[in-house]
């Protein structure tokens, strides 16, 4: 439990709570970008450099921008007077609290809580590329196909409907 972890956890949790509770949608999108950045810092802290930078590239660079564009296209940036939370907010909050309670109780009581710090693993980009090109080459191709299909599908869904 270091001071670095405390700072990262504080920033990430604050940004997450802000992203889920602010009224202005643009503020929510920016807070979620900060939360994704905090998670990238956590990955770097856990010696997973490649995943940390991939997280910044994909989430802060692409998904946060995509969310801001969706907010602009749906005119969500305009302030609304109506209620923020749905009619079933009490049940939803209760479910989330119960889920966190069960997870925290399980983590505190599991045998991994005795596991101490292990030596720093060595995960260079060279090794990751080696594994991706040999052992995981089929999943890599499948994920490329999935991304292509998803992007074409997204364009088709968002195209303007033809009036018949």
């Amino acid at each position: 439990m270091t001071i670095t972890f405390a700072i990262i956890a504080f920033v990430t949790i604050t940004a997450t709570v802000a992203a889920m509770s602010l009224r202005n949608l643009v503020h929510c999108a920016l807070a979620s970008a900060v939360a994704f950045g905090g998670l990238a810092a956590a990955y770097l802290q856990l010696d997973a450099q490649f995943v940390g930078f991939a997280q910044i590239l994909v989430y802060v660079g692409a998904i946060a921008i995509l969310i801001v564009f969706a907010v602009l296209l749906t005119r969500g940036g305009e302030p609304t007077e109506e209620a923020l939370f749905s009619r079933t907010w009490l049940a939803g909050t209760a479910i989330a609290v119960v889920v966190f309670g069960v997870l925290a109780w399980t983590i505190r009581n599991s045998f991994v809580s005795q596991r101490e710090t292990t030596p720093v693993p060595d995960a260079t980009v060279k090794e990751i590329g080696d594994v991706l090109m040999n052992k995981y080459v089929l999943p890599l191709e499948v994920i490329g196909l999935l991304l292509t299909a998803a992007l074409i599908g997204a364009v088709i869904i968002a195209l303007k409907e033809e009036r018949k």
Partner: protein
Amino acid sequence: MTPLIGYLLLSAFLFAIGLAGALTRRNAIIVLIGIELMLNAANLNFIAFWRFSEHPEALTGIMFVIFAIGVAAAEAAVGLALIIAIYRHYKTTNLDEVDSLKG
């Protein structure tokens, strides 16, 4: 408290906040952000378990997270396209008002 427990608790808390947002907010875009946060919490678990595992040289956790980030990118693109299509049809992104399946 060992470092692993700290990261697992952080991840569980992020998952719970994302779940609360996805279940309670009325705006579809915020619901999608909540789902992304839940996916990220799962990724943090993978990286934490990889870092404190006994055989980190297998790189299993890293590979799982890389593929999960790819799937999450595809999911975000399709989800936001669906939200734009819904907005064009109903003129709202309020999920409480989008309650009919008939076109």
